[in-house]
């Protein structure tokens, strides 16, 4: 077994000049990452809402929806993206549909759990006060469900930021593109930049969303979410 010359360790781990020369590529990757994440979470939230409401309104739908979403979540993301390629090719639909599906799965469960967790007494009080169902939903149930829903948004966002990197294998990737560049060229610098930036991005997003969660539901701060 020949141990080849340690070409990689001899090369620098971080070539700062590479970073300097490729700042615009790095920024493009970061921007693509933000766009894919933002759109996926946005669409996921919009689509999860009616599904969650349906599950609450018609209890028989509850178990099937939860079961179905739970199962879909175990499908490896790469497989999903690969299977979408014949339909949407290299266009943004391929990563976006897959990513949205995963955020949808997380958000539906949290929305349902959150809305269900609202005390029966509170709901009955609102009805007694003459609130219409819509008003009850928006002014009473949703705000109370907010901590659990926001926890879902947090998990969905951090998960999506990670999943976006996987889309590099199908022509997208955001910061994941930097992983592939490092892999193809056998050169650690873009790799390290990509890993560090995507980890920081996920961490920052989590912190940002925690503050939103605090702000939107100050009464729930004591509770463990």
């Amino acid at each position, binding site marked *: 077994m020949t141990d080849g010359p340690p070409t990689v360790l001899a090369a620098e781990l971080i070539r700062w000049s590479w970073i300097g*020369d490729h700042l615009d590529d790095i920024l493009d*990757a970061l921007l693509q990452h933000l766009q894919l994440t933002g759109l996926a979470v946005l669409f996921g939230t919009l689509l999860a809402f009616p599904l969650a409401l349906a599950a609450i309104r018609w209890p028989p739908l509850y178990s099937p929806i939860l079961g179905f979403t739970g199962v879909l979540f175990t499908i490896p993301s790469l497989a999903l993206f690969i299977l979408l390629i014949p339909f949407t090719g290299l266009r943004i639909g391929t990563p976006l549909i897959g990513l949205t599906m995963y955020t949808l799965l997380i958000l539906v469960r949290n929305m349902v759990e959150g809305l269900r967790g609202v005390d029966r007494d509170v709901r009955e009080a609102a009805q007694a006060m003459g609130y219409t169902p819509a008003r009850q939903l928006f002014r009473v149930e949703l705000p109370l469900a907010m901590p659990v829903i926001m926890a879902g948004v947090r998990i969905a966002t951090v998960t999506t930021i990670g999943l976006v990197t996987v889309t590099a294998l199908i022509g*997208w990737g955001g910061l994941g593109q930097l992983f592939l560049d490092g892999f193809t060229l056998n050169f650690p610098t873009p790799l390290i930049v990509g890993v560090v930036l995507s980890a920081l991005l996920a961490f920052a997003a989590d912190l940002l969303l925690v503050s939103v969660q605090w702000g*939107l539901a100050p009464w729930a701060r004591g509770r463990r979410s």
Partner: protein
Amino acid sequence: MRRIRLGSAAAAVCLALLVAACGGGEDALQGGNQPSDRSSVIVGSTNFPEQLILAQMYAAVLEKAGVDVTTRLNLGNREVVFPALEKGEIQLLPEYNGSVLSFLNPEATAVTSEEVNTALAPLLQAKNLVALEQSPAEDKDAWAVTQETASRYNLRTIDDLKPVAGQLVVGGPPELKTRPAGLPGLKRVYGIGDFKEFKALDAGGPLTVSALKKGDIDVGRVFTTQGVIAAEGWVVLEETKPLQPAQNVVPVGRTDAMTDQVKNALNALSAKITTEELTKLNAQVDVEKKDPEQVARDWLTQQGLI
């Protein structure tokens, strides 16, 4: 009160980021339907260093010719990239005539450059694609072994594999198992039986290179212009029978995007790319770890093409 203000501020920031991300920065979200404007071309590439160099060369000479160029490089393997070309999501690819032919027609048996190009043209035309003039440069699929393995089993040509195949582990891209020019071809043309094991890695990429270096495979699929072959002192087994088709570097593009302006620029470039030149450029990226775009542009400047 302060908490609520902090929370609302954070929410506002989130919203702003979301709007900015969706609204601005259209460039990063390319891949949508680009207008088939005569003077704009999207150049794509698959995922190995030579492709990056070639694509950057195409982009540079097209820019010089006054064409609007966008690049979408390192997209993945041909399975991702060629369908994108067929759908018009990219408009130009550096390709290898033999490989495209077997991609489009796995049963193809053409071997010389002329035969390959003749067989290829109608297949491309059916998809609104066209191959421009080929380069003299060829990057052929080949089999490599380490010096050690070559001496131990006395390997110089592919025929020499026949008696010892059962003791050797072979590695290459997953499709090697099924492609006519891959393992089935070795059986059909050289009569080489089953190897001890086939490891599905990549096509001459980092996995195959590392596995060959470390001895996890004995025989690896490589490409003849790769710089790592010379750097590691590997032995490329000689072909004694016609199996591998010609693999001239050739630009393949969408017919409607290949205007005269584009064609002239690319044909002038293709004529100057030779196998030796290409190998040298690959070594600069593979071994010296130079940046592909820089390597491409420096060479083009030297050649007086930009």
